[in-house]
């Protein structure tokens, strides 16, 4: 009983810590160096707020909320409203949008973007594990699909690093279409691979 409780507590702490660290790493990775042009500050603020609020939500997930919320003192009502806001808003989605936005403000750096993609997926998986209090073992069935996704991510990064055959928007669009077609093909085939 004691060992099981210790294991649950360890999962609780490590998954939350992993989510926070991965989120912070994603923001830093996408932000540095902070572009001087465009709404970089806004994107950085959005990403930071998303990661911080998501971390706070995970940290306060075990705080109980009274069933009966009538005639509560004002500080307690404010605290409950804060908890409610924290639990309802999609903070991680905001963080993802902010991070991707930050990344696109930089000049093309495909390998950097690929690493960011892997870190973002890891962040989302860690956040999910933390909020459902599950161990990493529950991700085992998805391992093959995740591996395929990483391969596609690397291929797309490679496509981004290839020199354009001819200057202009046409070749960039072609490379993009090739990448999307690759992903679509993977998405069509993988369900059957995953089922088997």
């Amino acid at each position, binding site marked *: 009983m004691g060992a099981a409780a210790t294991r649950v507590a360890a999962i609780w702490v490590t998954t939350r810590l992993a989510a926070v660290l991965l989120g912070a790493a994603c923001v830093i990775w996408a932000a540095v160096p902070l572009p001087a042009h465009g709404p970089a500050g806004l994107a950085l603020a959005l990403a930071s707020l998303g990661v911080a609020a998501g971390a706070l939500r995970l940290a306060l997930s075990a705080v109980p909320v009274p*069933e009966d919320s009538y005639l509560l003192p004002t500080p307690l009502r404010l605290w409950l409203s804060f908890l409610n806001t924290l639990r309802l808003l*999609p903070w*991680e*989605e905001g963080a*993802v*949008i902010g991070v*991707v*936005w930050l*990344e*696109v403000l930089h000049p*093309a750096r*495909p390998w950097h*973007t*690929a690493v*960011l*993609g*892997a870190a*973002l*997926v890891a962040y*989302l*998986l860690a*956040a*999910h594990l933390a909020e*459902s*209090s*599950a161990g990493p073992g*529950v991700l085992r*069935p*998805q391992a093959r*699909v*995740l591996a*395929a*996704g*990483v391969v*596609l*991510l*690397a*291929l*797309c*990064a490679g*496509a*981004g690093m290839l020199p354009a055959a001819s200057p202009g*928007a046409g070749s*960039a*669009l072609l*490379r*993009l279409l*090739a*990448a*999307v077609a*690759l*992903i679509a093909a*993977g*998405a*069509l085939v*993988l*369900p*059957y*691979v*995953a089922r088997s």
Partner: protein
Amino acid sequence: MPDTPGPNGRGSSPAGAQVSLRWRSSRHARRLLTLGLFALLVAALAGRPEFAGLAAPALLLLAAGRVQRRPPQITVVAELSSRRAFEGERVALGMTAAGQGDGQVRWTWHPGDEIAPVGVAAADGDQVRFVLTPERWGRRQTGTVEVVVRDRWRLTEGHATVVLPRLDCYPAPAQQRERVVLRRLPNRLGEHPARSSGEGIEFFGVREYVPGDRQRSINWPASTRRGRLQVNTFAAERSQDVVLMVDATSDVGTPGTSALDFALRGAAAAARAYLDARDRVGVITYQWGGARWLAPGLGRRQVYKIIDSMLASTGLVNTGAWARGSSLSRLPRAALPPGALVVVFSPLLDHRFVETLRDMRERGLAMLVVDVLNTEPPVRRHTADRLARRVWQMEQEAIRFSLRELGVPVVHWDGEQPLDLPLAAYTRRPLGAHR
């Protein structure tokens, strides 16, 4: 969230019930979708294929998770370890799910009113066990359980709400060991020594030997002194009829320690104590517009019948008979047998009830009132309020004085100490029926 019918509404029957699941995307899936779509949008707008790669793992996960099997229904069994419990007693609630395939089940229990969880209120697994304790007597809904079935890839969640079986919570009986015994007991075998000779074990007196007396009962020292054979006689052992009377007209005080709480706990304790002594015990619950009664009876089950009858006064269970009218004169003889000891638990706040007590006393019933009033009007600064409070206190003292003048003992019980303490003066010697 709409409630689905309880899996076993009649209580702890282990038969399962089919519960429909409402499937929807999980938060995790929505996040992956956000990443995938936003990255694709950025890739299209910026014309940079590496951002399409950013979307790849998320979109692949979502696509692969599409083919997961999602059962439309699962079977849920909710089982209470007991359908009846006393206040503060622990009851286990077992939840079992079947038919979810390889989905993972999460249970979140929302306890009902006056039901306190002991330990966790959320758990994972096909079979879980929660522990609860009812905090106050009454028919209690143990609450609802929110069931969430996650598919293997945790991309979709099936939600359902299960209404749990109800629990009948009995007032926790107070402590009572000693009993008040009447001076005149009916001619029925029991455990109380009567004021007549019989076949008991308590010494009663000495009389002259008559043929037929047992040789072992000869009192040799007395025979030697008197020169004739003397035999010991023993007190007969009799039982009595006890009618517990609970005043349910007023429930003043904090819930949990109110006058009605104490009245029910005291009556439950008295029922136990007298039934343990083989007395016949009945109950009359007096309330607005009438009284609910249960004829005196014997046996262990009578305790539960009595408590059920008392709880019926609050409309919680339907047990016992009902007599309309504020006067107890309409009660049948079976409910209030002549010569019975009447033990009343009341805060003595209702004047009609006090009049009823006087009426019963004048009819010759032996009575004893346990005053369970432990609260007073709040102390306020205004002179009029203080005066009103003082008038109220004097009125209460007058009520108790008038009952004592009629020969009805009134003892105060604070609900915390054993009932033996306030009753000590009356458990040491028999109680007379007449003035």
